[in-house]
């Protein structure tokens, strides 16, 4: 018997994540309104950061280190651009590679930790990096950051215009989504097994640490891409762009949307970025309203919005299929039909 791990259904749901990104191309075409540009940039950067959280959540690890890796990617790109290398593809590659290289030795240290200990260490890593940025003014500009980062270019085109920035952010989001899709699908059985029952996976021969390290490195690279897009949008690399608090937002995007499929971070980011902009018109209540929304969603839909909707449809479909089975099955209490087809 030949058996393949089946992940087709999840794959389709994940493709929806990619499909939802596509219409964003229209934003710079349909409007010149700065507000929508800013919203699009904010949502797409948030999404890339949330995807970094999502990759780690696939292995049941909650990482607060996303802003730190974003900072490493963003600063690497800013320093390179200041040095005259403004090619978009080069900067993207650099902003992925730099945090990934940092994550490799770091992973060897912190991936031994589980649960709350891992969370704490990633949180501390953020703080250390913030400190490092302030203490290395020669390299990172210290508390001034690096301002006046030149705009990126591609094939001689200057992408410093408002539209250009949205397109750069969109390209980064596409690439990050594709990377996440590729990694979480190629190694879905491994990640899912590590998430659910690591001891069993090891007893069957899986070298779990390799996959955990690999996931950590890719998640760091994806976060670096988000950092690059952020620096490109602001034309500045500054420590305050990468605060620990922003990391909490990215985690909220992934968890509110649902950690089960890639559609989760997309939906979560969309909803929370939109609502936080909506609430910001309420002035001093905005943070409270934002927090309230998160509490409501997490209590009412513990597996995230996408997960809960998914379960809802599954329950309906099961009920329908049971009632459809009843007449044909009345005589066979003992012999169960072999189930086939969809879930």
């Amino acid at each position, binding site marked *: 018997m030949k058996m393949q*791990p089946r992940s087709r259904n999840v794959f389709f749901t994940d493709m929806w994540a990619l499909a939802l990104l596509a219409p964003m191309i229209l934003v710079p075409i349909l409007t010149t309104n700065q507000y929508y540009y800013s919203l699009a940039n904010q949502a797409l950067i948030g999404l890339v950061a949330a995807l970094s959280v999502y990759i780690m959540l696939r292995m049941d690890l909650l990482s607060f280190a996303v802003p730190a890796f974003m900072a490493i990617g963003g600063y690497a790109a800013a320093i390179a651009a200041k040095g005259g290398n403004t090619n978009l593809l080069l900067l993207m590659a650099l902003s992925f590679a730099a945090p990934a290289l940092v994550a490799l030795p770091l992973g060897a240290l912190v991936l031994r930790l589980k649960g709350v200990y891992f969370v704490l260490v990633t949180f501390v890593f953020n703080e250390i990096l913030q400190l490092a940025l302030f203490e290395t003014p020669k390299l990172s500009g210290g508390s001034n950051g690096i301002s006046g980062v030149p705009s990126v270019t591609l094939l001689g085109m200057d992408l410093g215009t408002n539209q250009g920035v949205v397109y750069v952010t969109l390209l980064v989001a596409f690439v990050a989504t594709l990377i996440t899709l590729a990694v979480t699908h190629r190694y879905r059985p491994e990640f899912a*097994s590590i998430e*659910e*029952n690591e001891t069993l996976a*090891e*007893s069957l021969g899986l070298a779990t640490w390799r996959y955990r390290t690999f996931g950590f490195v890719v998640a760091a690279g994806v976060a670096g891409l988000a950092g690059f897009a952020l620096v490109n949008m602001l034309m500045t690399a500054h420590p305050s762009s990468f605060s620990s608090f922003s990391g909490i937002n990215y985690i909220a995007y992934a968890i509110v949307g649902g950690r089960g499929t890639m559609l989760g971070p997309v939906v979560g980011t969309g909803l929370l970025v939109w609502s936080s902009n909506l609430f910001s018109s309420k002035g001093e209540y905005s943070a409270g309203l934002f927090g309230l929304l998160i509490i409501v969603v997490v209590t009412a839909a513990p597996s995230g919005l996408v997960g809960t909707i998914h379960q809802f449809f599954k329950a309906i479909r099961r009920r329908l299929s049971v009632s459809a089975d009843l007449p044909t099955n009345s005589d066979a209490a003992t012999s169960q039909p072999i189930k086939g087809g969809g879930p």
Partner: protein
Amino acid sequence: MMRWPKEQVPSDAAVTLRVEGLSKRFGGLQVFDDIALELEPGGILGVIGPNGAGKTTLINVICGMLSPSAGRILVGSQEITGKPLHVVSGMGVVRSFQQTNTFRSACVGENLARAARFSVGDAEADLGLDTLLEEFGLRQHLEDPSGDLPYGLQKMLGLLMALATQPRFLLLDEPAAGLEVRERVHIDRFVQHARSVLGCGVLIVEHDMELIRRLCPRILVLEAGRVLASGAPAEVLARREVIDAYMGESEEEKC
């Protein structure tokens, strides 16, 4: 990527699993001391003993979940002492668990596919799993999440997953515990199958004396971490000290 070269055991059919002078201590608590045993390909060794005798810890140490305090474990001439769980598994020494242990949210078919995928075994090999799935009543549940299955089926699935890795040696930790009497013959069938298809050596820790008598030509009795007796079950189980230690001294518990 990610297919690191695994350590391979020489494919010599006469490779045995040997345990020499094995001891395990947790701080001041000596779980077992100076255990020696040998398991040939296709052989079956029963390990029995009262609760707390160190049987499960013995399996935990051999499979690499715990490292021993002293002693050696060898597959053929290759030492596996202190190697991590996945490496020992990759060398063909695979355990099953006393409790049900599956990827609960994944369906039965997916569980078996993962076992095959994570192992170093030959992907094309026909292990006859179809037949066993049918006999154990798992066939109609291939699409069901394994966590929803009855206890007995989950346990049989755990055994089949161990088999799907194409082990050389199986370490079975109370495979019959929690099974209904009519389900226990499945264990006989499973062990027989593992031996005939893969030539597995099987170490079986069990409390079901009937099962031990049926399956094992040789048994080892552990008591308080020492080997109390070893030999053919009929002879060993008749010894006075074994009856006292294992069955307890009270009359009504003899069975």
